[in-house]
């Protein structure tokens, strides 16, 4: 089975631990537990501010995992995913905000939309499916592009989404804030969705399609010659990743309770991209990158106020990216998931202990 090689490096020969999906589940479990432990710890011991910081981290992590599922695995940089996040957020907001508020805020909206007051989970699911459908249609021509043209095309998607949201006065309030969205995103809801996103991103990565997509990252022609339908796996990843980003948008909308089109533009895109660039092109990389960026940003934000140095965090984050690109161009974790890296290290130690010095993964 081709995807066996996706779960465990070909450079780490040894006993395979069951089917690929079982190893993906096992590999994801560690990260999921870490996320849930963070949620429990911050909820138990953190201040209200810490709760907000941690919840924001989980939400951005979901979007980063969405972006990773396409950009990390395909090698095509996408600027569109924050746009998908916006669409998910607005869709869920429109379906859940009390009709009484919508009568004031968007009096010219269609009646069916005005009267819609769906359950958070139902609205969230509809929003995710809707965004996946939109992404699928957009993706059909877009996945045929490679390199810089593909990246520029995704900027076009972001700009189009922003322009539509900013000018749909009767539905989104245009450039004005859409307010009154029910507050449903707690730290545990955000952590649970983030854990789910880790699982989905990891399962896709280790699947046949994920392996094919990752091979196309290295050599498009080579992977096509090996039987990979690159357009198909890219379209699958694009659609799936848009759905994950949309889930992040749903969480964001019901956390902030207010949405503005201007929030979903280049600044947030840069933040999310930084997370996956620093972490590396794996699900674990997205988690590690999101943690580092979130923690560093928060510490530096507080340092800015303490030392009266506005803008310090932006400068330091820029330096962070620069140093990472120089020292670890493929991100801190490189191409490794944490569990495969640990397994490789463990085997290396075992070989050293048994007198074998050759081979070894995880470096």
């Amino acid at each position: 089975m081709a995807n066996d090689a996706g779960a465990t490096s070909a450079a780490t020969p040894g006993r395979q631990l069951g089917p690929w999906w079982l190893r993906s589940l096992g590999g994801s479990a560690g990260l999921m537990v870490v996320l849930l432990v963070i949620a429990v710890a911050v909820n138990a011991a953190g201040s209200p501010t810490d709760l907000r910081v941690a919840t924001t981290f989980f939400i951005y992590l979901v979007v980063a995992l969405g972006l990773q599922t396409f950009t990390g695995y395909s090698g095509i940089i996408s600027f569109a995913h924050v746009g998908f996040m916006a669409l998910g957020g607005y869709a869920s907001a429109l379906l859940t905000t009390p009709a009484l508020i919508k009568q004031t805020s968007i009096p010219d909206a269609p009646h069916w939309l005005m009267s819609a007051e769906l359950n958070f989970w139902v609205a969230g699911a509809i929003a995710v499916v809707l965004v996946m459908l939109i992404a699928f249609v957009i993706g059909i021509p877009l996945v045929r592009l490679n390199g810089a043209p593909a990246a520029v095309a995704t900027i076009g998607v972001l700009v189009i989404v922003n322009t539509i949201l900013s000018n749909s006065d009767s539905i989104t309030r245009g450039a004005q804030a859409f307010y009154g969205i029910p507050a449903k995103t707690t730290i545990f809801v955000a952590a649970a969705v983030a854990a789910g996103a880790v699982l989905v991103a990891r399962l896709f990565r280790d699947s046949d399609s994920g392996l094919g997509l990752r091979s196309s990252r290295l050599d498009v022609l080579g992977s096509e010659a090996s039987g990979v339908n690159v357009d198909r796996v890219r379209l699958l990843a694009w659609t799936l990743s848009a759905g994950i980003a949309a889930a992040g948008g749903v969480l964001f909308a019901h956390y902030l309770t207010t949405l503005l089109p201007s929030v979903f533009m280049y600044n947030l895109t840069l933040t999310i991209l930084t997370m996956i660039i620093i972490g590396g092109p794996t699900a674990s990389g997205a988690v590690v990158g999101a943690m580092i960026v979130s923690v560093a940003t928060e510490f530096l934000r507080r340092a800015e106020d303490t030392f009266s140095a506005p803008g310090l965090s932006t400068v330091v984050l820029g330096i962070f990216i620069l140093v990472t690109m120089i020292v670890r161009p493929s991100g801190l974790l490189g191409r490794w998931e944490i569990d495969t890296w640990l397994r490789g290290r463990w085997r290396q130690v075992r070989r050293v202990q048994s007198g074998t010095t050759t081979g070894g993964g995880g470096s």
Partner: protein
Amino acid sequence: MTGRWITWRSRAGAAAAVVAACALAAGVTACGSNSDSSTGAASTSAGTGTGSSGGGTYKIGWAEAKTGYLALVDQPLEKGLRAEIARINDAGGIDGKYKIELETRDMKTDAATGATVAQELLSDGIDALITTCDTDVSLPGAQIAAQQNTPVISSCGAGAQFPQQVPAPYGFLNVSGTEAEGSAIAEYANKKGYKTAYILSSNSEAYTSRLPAAFEKRFKELGGRIVGSAQYKIGDTDYRATATKIVSANPDVIVPAAFPPDSIAFLKNLAAAGNTKPIILNDGNDTPAIFGAGSQLKNSTMITYGGYTGPDSTAEQWLAAYKKMFGGEPGSLQTALGGDLADALAAAVKAAGSTDGTKVANALRGLPTFPGATGPVTYGDSTKFGLTPGVPKKMFAVATFDLPNKSFKVVESFFPDKVVQ
């Protein structure tokens, strides 16, 4: 050698992952215990003026834009606020009972960061929250404050719906709102005898879309005619085509709903197109940066706040306090809006006889005319002037530009006869 290098890098990656996980769970919590403690000493800006001296204190928190595009307007207002706080404290504090303290934190012109900063300030025990100069960006933080029974005022955001968008009675504006300003520009244009106008607007922000809409409505009511309008996107740098169209349309007056750097680029392109028609700018241009626009300022006027020297004003005392604190004149007229923030809260606390958030908010909602740094201000009677509860009635200033000295010259102050909705 290579093997050692790779091993080191792998360890670095793993170590970073572990450190990040631990830091998020424990480090932020530890850091947070600092900022959310009752003292908030670690990340608190210094208090202003003489500070507390054994009596009570009234603590104001400002989730301020110190970076990002709103810093351009928030930062001068902070200086205006600090000067007025110092003046009030030097005079014995609010009603001789409460010294005012100010704590500011950077919300980076970001709505989500603004909410986090608002929560941080509330955890530090503030009595009132000031948010940034954009009601839409302010909203998430404002809602958190209102839910915790804390009065919240946008520093100079102009969305008149803001007070209704947060739980009553806690939301307030510090200006008379976009519709009032649009109406004021229209009435001033009519007074000058202009019959036709060309509008520049942008859907990028509520301010730049609602202001021209209000102007158009009031201008038409007064018999004026709109001969053309153009759209731009905030951040645009090239207005040559628009400028050519405007000059060709030959309007009596040009009304661009823009602010620097956009308005500077627009005015420069107008000059290049040979425009000689008058221009009326909005209060977003009340900043020293506007003098970079050059020659078109000779035929421009600006509707803004501040510079009022009539009765019922603390302008002179505020200006003296400002010069004493900062050693010079403020760079903009609307710096006085910062002084108004302190005047309004002080008047409300005095009227409430308490620092309780609900009592102060209710007192501010009903506050009759009181002297402010921009002139006489009223919240309690503002509905009589076509404004909504929580939106103050303030005097607008008509200012011209003294290019050689790079200063503003106030030629008159007024409030429109009618505010369109």
